[in-house]
C-alpha cells in the first residue's frame, strides 16, 4: 500500500515537473532558471529525444564582423548557411571565397578588406590609418564572386562609459557534485543620463589548474601547474531602458572556476551597441535558449542589418556592428583557499587542459597593461 502511494506521488511529481518545464522559458534569462531547467530536464520523463532531420533551404549569406575604436585589424567573417557537421571545421563549400569587401565611413573614407589565406572565411582590415571613431557611421559593402552585392545599413559607432570596478566573489560549489567552486566576477559601471545606451560584455579568465588534477611538487616547486581559459556568456547584452542614468552595479559577467589554487587573471570588455544591434543580439540569445514551451515567442529568422543592394527583401544573416570598447582587468589572488582542504575535497577531480596562455611578462603586469 505504501509502495503504491509512493508510486502515485512519483507520478504526480513527474506531471508537475513536466508542467513546470513548460513554464520555464519565462525565467530562462536568469541563472537560477537555467539551473532549475537543467535539473528538471534530466529528472523528468516528459522530454524525449526525436530524430528529426533539419531541412536545408537555399544557402543564405552570413555576415559576422565588428569595427571598433581599437586599432586594426578588424575582421569580417563571410560564410553561407548550410549543413554544418563538425564542431570546428568549416565545410569548404560554405566559405565565401573571392569576395570584394569594403568598409566606408560617412566622411568618405573607405578601406578594402583582404581575405586571409589561412582562414579563407575571414576578411581583414589591416590598414592602421583606418580606425573606428565614436560618432561616425560605417557601412559594409560585399560583392560576391557571382556578382551579387550586399550592403549594410550605416551603423553608428556610439560611445561607452568606462568600467568603474570589477570585484570577485567566492561561491562554494554544490556539495556532492563534481562541480568546482567559482569566483563570480561582478562589474560596476555608470549609465549616462541620456537614454538609449546599450551594452555588451565579453569576459575571459585564466584560472590555475594542475595537469593531472593533483599538484606535483618537485623541490618545493609545483611543476605541473598551468592556466586554463574560461569565457563569459556568449551574448551578454543589456539595455538601459529600465535603469537609465543609474549605476549598473554587481552585474555578473563571468564565473571563473576554481580548479586549483593560485591567481586568476580576468579581463572584461564592455562594448557599446546601437539599438538595432541590441535587438539583434537579444533575439539571437532568445532563440539560442528556446525551451520548447508554449510560452516561447514565435521563432523567426534572426535578420541583421545587411541586405542585397538591389533587392532589399533578401536579407543576410548575421550583423555588422560598430562598438567602442572599454576594458578592465583584475587579478584574483586566490589566497583565501585552504590548500590542504582543497586537495582533500577536489584532489584529482579537475584534470588540466592547459590552453594557450599569456606570457609571464604579461601576467606580471596584468592590471597595468
Amino acid at each position: 500500500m505504501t509502495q503504491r502511494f509512493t508510486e502515485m506521488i512519483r507520478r504526480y511529481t513527474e506531471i508537475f515537473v513536466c508542467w513546470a518545464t513548460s513554464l520555464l522559458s519565462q525565467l530562462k534569462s536568469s541563472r537560477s532558471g537555467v539551473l532549475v531547467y537543467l535539473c528538471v530536464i534530466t529528472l523528468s520523463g516528459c522530454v524525449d529525444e526525436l530524430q528529426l532531420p533539419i531541412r536545408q533551404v537555399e544557402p543564405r549569406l552570413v555576415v559576422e564582423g565588428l569595427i571598433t575604436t581599437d586599432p586594426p585589424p578588424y575582421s569580417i567573417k563571410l560564410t553561407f548557411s548550410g549543413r554544418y557537421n563538425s564542431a570546428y571545421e568549416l565545410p569548404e563549400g560554405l566559405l565565401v571565397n573571392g569576395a570584394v569587401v569594403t568598409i566606408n565611413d560617412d566622411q568618405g573614407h573607405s578601406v578594402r578588406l583582404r581575405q586571409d589565406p589561412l582562414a579563407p572565411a575571414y576578411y581583414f582590415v589591416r590598414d592602421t590609418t583606418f580606425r573606428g571613431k565614436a560618432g561616425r557611421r560605417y557601412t559594409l559593402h560585399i560583392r560576391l564572386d557571382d556578382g551579387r552585392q550586399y550592403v549594410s545599413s550605416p551603423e553608428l559607432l556610439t560611445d561607452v562609459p568606462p568600467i568603474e570596478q570589477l570585484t570577485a566573489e567566492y561561491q562554494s560549489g554544490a556539495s556532492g557534485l563534481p562541480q568546482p567552486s567559482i569566483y563570480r566576477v561582478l562589474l560596476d559601471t555608470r549609465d549616462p543620463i541620456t537614454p538609449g545606451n546599450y551594452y555588451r560584455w565579453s569576459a575571459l579568465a585564466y584560472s590555475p589548474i594542475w595537469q593531472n588534477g593533483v599538484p606535483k611538487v618537485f623541490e618545493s616547486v609545483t611543476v605541473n601547474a598551468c592556466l586554463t581559459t574560461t569565457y563569459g556568456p556568449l551574448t551578454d547584452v543589456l539595455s538601459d531602458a529600465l535603469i537609465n542614468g543609474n549605476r549598473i552595479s554587481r552585474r555578473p559577467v563571468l564565473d571563473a572556476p576554481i580548479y586549483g589554487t593560485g591567481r586568476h587573471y580576468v579581463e572584461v570588455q564592455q562594448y557599446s551597441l546601437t539599438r538595432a544591434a541590441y535587438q539583434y543580439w537579444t533575439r539571437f540569445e532568445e532563440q539560442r535558449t528556446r525551451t520548447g514551451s508554449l510560452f516561447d515567442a514565435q521563432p523567426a529568422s534572426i535578420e541583421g542589418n545587411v541586405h542585397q543592394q538591389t533587392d532589399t527583401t533578401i536579407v543576410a544573416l548575421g550583423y555588422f556592428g560598430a562598438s567602442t570598447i572599454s576594458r578592465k582587468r583584475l587579478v584574483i589572488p586566490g589566497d583565501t583557499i585552504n590548500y590542504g582542504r582543497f586537495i582533500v575535497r577536489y584532489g584529482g577531480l579537475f584534470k588540466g587542459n592547459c590552453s594557450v596562455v599569456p606570457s609571464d611578462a604579461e601576467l606580471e603586469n596584468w592590471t597595468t597593461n
Partner: protein
Amino acid sequence: MFTFYPMHQFFVRIILASVLLLIAVPRLQAQIRFRIYGQVVDGVTNKPLANVSVYDKKQGAGTTTDSTGAFSMQVLPGPYNLTFSAVGYYARSRFLEIERANIRMEVALNPDTRQLDEVNVKGRTPDANVSATQMSVVRLDMKNLRNIPVVFGEVDILKALTLQPGVSTVGEGAGGFNVRGGRTDQNLVLLDGAPLFNTSHLLGLLSNLNADAIQDVTLYKGGIPAAYGGRLSSLLLMNTKAGETDRVSVNGGIGLLTSRLLVQGPASKNKKLTFLAGGRIAYPSFILGLFPEPTNKDRAFFYDLNGRLTYRLTNDSQLSATVYRSYDTFKFPQDTLYTTQSTLLTARWSQRLNPQLSFNLTATQSDYRFFLDGLTSTNTYRYRSTIRQRDARLDWLYTPKPTHRLEFGGSLTGYSLLPGAIAPTGDNSNINTQTLPTEQAREWAGYLSEEWTPFRVLSVQVGVRYAQFTNVGPGVAYQYAEGQPRTRESITDTLRYGNGQALAHYGGWEPRLTIRANLTPNSSLKVSYNRTRQFLHLISNTTAISPVDFWKVSDALVPPQVADQFAVGYFRNFNDNMYETSVEVYHKTLENLVEYRNGATLLLNPTLDADLLRAQGKAYGVEVSVQKTRGLLTGLIAYTYSRTLARVPSPYPSVQINGGDWYPSTFDRPHNLTIATQWKWSRGWTFGTNFVYTSGRPTTYPDGTYRLNGAKVLDYSQRNADRIPDYHRLDVSFTKDGRRTVGQRHYSNWSISFYNVYAHKNPYSIYFQRVNTTTKSYQLSVFGTIIPSISWNFTY
C-alpha cells in the same frame, strides 16, 4: 484548395428569397387571444428554473422560461396539453382548456437522478436541435459534468467545452480556447454579464470557474445574438446559481488539487432573499514540496470565490447581486513571483411590467490585475498591468404575440487599462520607475432583434447592433513617416491629448441573421450570418496565452478587428428525438488581427504601435455531430474538419511574415474527432469515456544552420511550415452517485478518473537544441502518462 467563396452568392440568394417570402405572406386574420403564464420551479428546492421548455405539440405553440422561471405565451382558445421539460428533470404535462380568460400556472419539476446525465450537452426542448431558431450553440448540462473524465479530478467547464466540435486549444495545459478558428482573446466570456479577462488557474492548467457555483453554460459559436458584441468569435454565457429557496444546503468536495465548499439557501424568513457563497482553494504547493531541490521551493497557490444574493420583490420583480474573485500566485524561488487576480461585481434588476414586456437592468465591473515581482537582489521590482471594464446595460424583451419575440436595448462601457508599469521595490534596487500611459476608452451600443415565427416550419431571427467606440485622452499618439515600415526612428511627431479628448473614433453596424426552415417535422435547414467587431486586443506573441500578456484598446494605428461569419446547417432528429444529428458548414473572414514584427518588444514598449502589424484571417470548416440523448447509454460523436489561416499583407517586405502569403495559424488543427459516452450502471455508478483525436498544431522547425558568434545557430525562415504529430488520448471515469431516491438531501458522490489511459506521450511541443556540438530535436509531453485521480463530493 477547397474554398467556400461561391457560398456567399448562395447565401445572398437565400436571404433575398426569404425576405421576399416574408413580405408576400398575408397577415393572418386577427382572433381573440388569451394568455397562459406562470412560473416553473424545482420540485425539491423550489428554486425557479430557467430555460424550461413549455410546449404544446399539437398546436405547435411554445416558449421557454426566463431566468426567474417565468413564462408567458399567447394562445387561441382551445384545448392544450402543455409539456414542461428541462435537462435533468422529469418532463411534466398539464392539460388545460382555454375558454375566455388568461390562465396562470405554477409548475414544479422533479429532478431526475437517473437521467441526470441525459447527455452532457443538450438544447432546451427535446427537439430544439431541429426546432430552435439558433444554430451553432452548445449548452453544457452542469449536472452531467461530473460524469465526464477529467484531469486531476477537477471538474472543468472550459475543458468540457473543448470536447465540442469547433472548439479547440493549442495544447493541454494551455489556457484559453479557440472557437472556429478564432483566437483566445476573441471569446466574450460573461459571468453574470461581466466579462472575464482571465479564465485560467495555474497559468492554464485548470480553468478558474467553479462548476459547483454555476447554473448554466451556453456557448455561441455563431449566430451570436444581437444583444452581445465586442468579441469576434464566440460568446460564452454563464450564470451563478440563484441559491435554493427552501433550506440551507451545503455541498463541497475534496480532490487532489483543490477543496471546495458551497453554501446556499434562504437568508430571510419569508424566503424572498436567498444567498449563495462558494469557494475553492488549492494546495499544489504541498505537491511541489515533494520535489527534489530546488523545485520544492517553488510555490503555487490559488483560490476562487463566488457569491450571490437574490431578492424576489414580487413574482414579477427580482434584484440580484453577484461577486466573483479569482487569485493565483506562482513563485520560482529567488527569482520571480507571478500574481494574477480577477474581481467581478454585478448588480441586476429584472422586472416584468406585464406578461408581454419585461426588462433587465444590469451594472457590472470587471477588474483584472497582473503582478510580476522580481526578486533578484540588486534588481528587485514590481511590474504590473491592469484592465478594468465597467458596463451598464438595459435589455428589453417584448413578446406581443407568440410569433414575435422582440429584444432591444443598449449598453454603455468604460475601459481603463494600464498596459504596463514597473517600479523598484526595496532600497537597493537599480530599477527606475517606468509607467506607460493609461489607456481610456468609452463605448456605447444599441441593438434590436426580432424573432419571428410566421409558420411552424419557418422562423427568422433578424437583428442589428451598432457600436460606437472612442479612445479618449489623456494620451499620446505617435505619428510615423509615410512610405516605410513604422519604427521608433521613423516617428515624425508626437501628439498629446488632454483629458477627455478623443484619440480615435470607430463605429459600425453589426447585422445578425438566422433563418430556420423545417424540411420535415424532424429535420430542418438553418442559415446564419453575423458580423462582429472587437475594440480590445490581447497583446501576446507566444503560442499559448501567458499571464504576461496584456490588453490594449484600439487607437489611431490599431483599428478594431472585424469578422464576418456565414454558417449553414442541416439538423435531423431520429427516434422521437433520442438521436440528434447535425452537419454545419461555416466560413469566416477576419480583418485587422494584431500580429507582431519578428523580434517585437511587447512589454513596457512606449512605441508598441511600431512593433504591431495588421493581419487577415480566414477560417472554414465542417462540423458533424451525432448525439444520443436518452437511455442508459448516452453520448456524442463529433467530427470537425476545419482550417484557419492568416497572412500579413504589409506592403513592406521587411516586416512581412512568410512573404505575405497565407500560412496556417498556430491553432489550425484540421481533423478533430471526439467520442464521449456515459453509461449508467446500477447502484448509481456511471462509466464515462472520452476519446479525443486531433491533428497536430502547426509549428516552426528550423530550415537552415549557420555559424555565428562561435555557436551553431538555427534559422527559422518559414513560420508554421511544419506540424507536430497528431494528438490522441482516451480517458475513463467511474462516478458513484450516492443517492437512493430523487429527493434525498444528504448524500455523497465519488469520482475516479483515469486521464490518458494508454499513457500516450502526446507532444506538447517539439524543439531543437544544441547539445555540445550537435543539434538535437526533443519532444515535450506534459500529460504524457496515465493520470489517476479521485475526488469526493458531498451535499448536505
